[in-house]
């Protein structure tokens, strides 16, 4: 298994290197992202979990061919989620800090990008290197993207200083953006991700029928056992259309499968409308997500050693998530102010609704195991941010 994965990595790397060598010869391109700064506050509330924090991004071009970016992101988590309640643990708080540094180099119509992301919590660390190439082709009607990332995670466990495990992650991406008509832009993306290592959540348990209960109405808990590898494939198509009046329609579809037996569909449609000649722009979108459960998922296993892999993460179950997004943006300093070219203040709200088909609310232990009501929850997501271009 290991040799297959490393072979895959080698051949993909070789392909990327070959592509890198070729791309500049194809055509001349490209523009670097605009210089900007963003300050965002985010807040998620749902399912007994509150997560909030800031995100700051600064991007600056140098010598017209280099662009550097830095992002600092924080999740302050306060959790008494259903997983925590079922396992009998108490509410906990923690913080995740994430730093991201990016460097882009534009040469002709090719943009080379390097990035590094570091994420740390008290019991989880992750570092990811990424590399991307973007190439404009055919009179700049087409942009081809290719990328590779390598991540390495360290998993620890609170109250168990002796526990430490690792995960290696590889991601390979190819994308195409195409101007089809004067008003229509389309995109296609493919991404393959492979993980290898300790993929469990060390705190989460699966449940099985209590063998010492002859009535079969109670259950016991045991630490989940996951496979040590997972490979997923995702392919997406998206489109953005400029309407006859000044407004945009957009839509996307993504198909996903993985080696754990999960399949998923994501559909999103949205509309953006600048309000007459005012500085206001309004937007709204709907998103529908549906997935099937992993092969080794069950809400309640018959015995403790029912099969080799056993998990009860609701993320691995069969469920639907329907969400609605609305947003308002206010543009200021459109004709420039001091060093600012323009700016926006934005307020976004998303409502998420998760409905599980085979994950039950086991937090009430008075009910017969396996007859509890199916779980569902709603979440509110707020974003407030200021963007300036300079």
């Amino acid at each position: 298994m290991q040799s297959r994965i490393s072979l895959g990595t080698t051949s993909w790397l070789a392909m990327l290197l070959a592509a890198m060598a070729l791309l500049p010869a194809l055509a001349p391109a490209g523009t670097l992202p605009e210089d900007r700064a963003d300050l965002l506050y985010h807040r998620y509330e749902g399912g007994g979990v509150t997560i909030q924090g800031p995100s700051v991004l600064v991007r600056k071009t140098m010598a017209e061919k280099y662009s550097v970016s830095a992002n600092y992101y924080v999740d302050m988590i306060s959790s008494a989620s259903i997983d925590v309640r079922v396992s009998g643990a108490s509410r906990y708080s923690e913080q995740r800090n994430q730093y991201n540094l990016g460097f882009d180099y534009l040469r002709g119509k090719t943009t080379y990008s390097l990035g590094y992301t570091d994420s740390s919590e008290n019991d989880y660390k992750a570092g990811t290197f990424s590399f991307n190439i973007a190439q404009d082709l055919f009179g700049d009607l087409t942009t081809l993207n290719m990328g590779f990332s390598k991540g390495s995670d360290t998993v620890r466990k609170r109250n168990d200083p002796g526990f430490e495990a690792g995960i290696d992650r590889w991601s390979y991406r190819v994308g195409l953006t195409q101007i089809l008509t004067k008003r229509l832009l389309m995109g296609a993306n493919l991404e393959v991700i492979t993980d290898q290592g300790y993929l469990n959540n060390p705190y989460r348990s699966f449940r099985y029928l209590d063998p010492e209960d002859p009535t079969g109405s109670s259950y016991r808990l045991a630490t989940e056992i996951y496979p040590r590898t997972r490979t997923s494939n995702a392919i997406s198509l998206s489109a953005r259309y400029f309407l006859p009046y000044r407004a945009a329609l957009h839509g996307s579809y993504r198909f996903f499968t993985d080696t754990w037996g999960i399949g998923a569909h994501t559909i999103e449609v949205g509309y953006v409308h600048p309000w007459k000649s005012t500085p206001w722009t309004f937007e709204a979108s709907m998103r529908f997500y549906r997935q099937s459960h992993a092969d080794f998922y069950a809400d309640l296993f018959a015995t403790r050693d029912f099969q080799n892999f056993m998990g009860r993460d609701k993320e691995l179950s069969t469920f639907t998530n329907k969400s609605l997004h609305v947003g308002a943006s206010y543009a200021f300093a459109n004709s420039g102010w001091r060093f600012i070219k323009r700016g926006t203040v934005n307020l976004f709200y998303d409502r998420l609704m998760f409905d599980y088909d085979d994950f039950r609310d086991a937090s009430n232990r008075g009910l017969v195991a396996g007859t509890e009501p199916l779980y569902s929850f709603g979440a509110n997501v707020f974003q407030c941010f200021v963007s300036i271009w300079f």
Partner: protein
Amino acid sequence: MRDTGFSARATVLQRCAMLVTIGLMLGGCGNIEPWVKPYERQAFADPIMALDANPVSSAYIDHVYEARESARGAVGSSGGGCGCN
């Protein structure tokens, strides 16, 4: 074992050769006349047509979904992930 190594190298070489061929073919297509002229692309210069107008916001919302859904990847941004659970 030796055979496996050889076929592995062969596969890599085959893939590279395929890519070089595709590249050369694409290079030959470099003279395709753009059917939407540069002066006809003002719609794409409008910020409402940007594929990722708010990268900080889209990275955040992608993370909100990725932490709660099994599907991942192909979201169109530069990707890379944070490896956070």
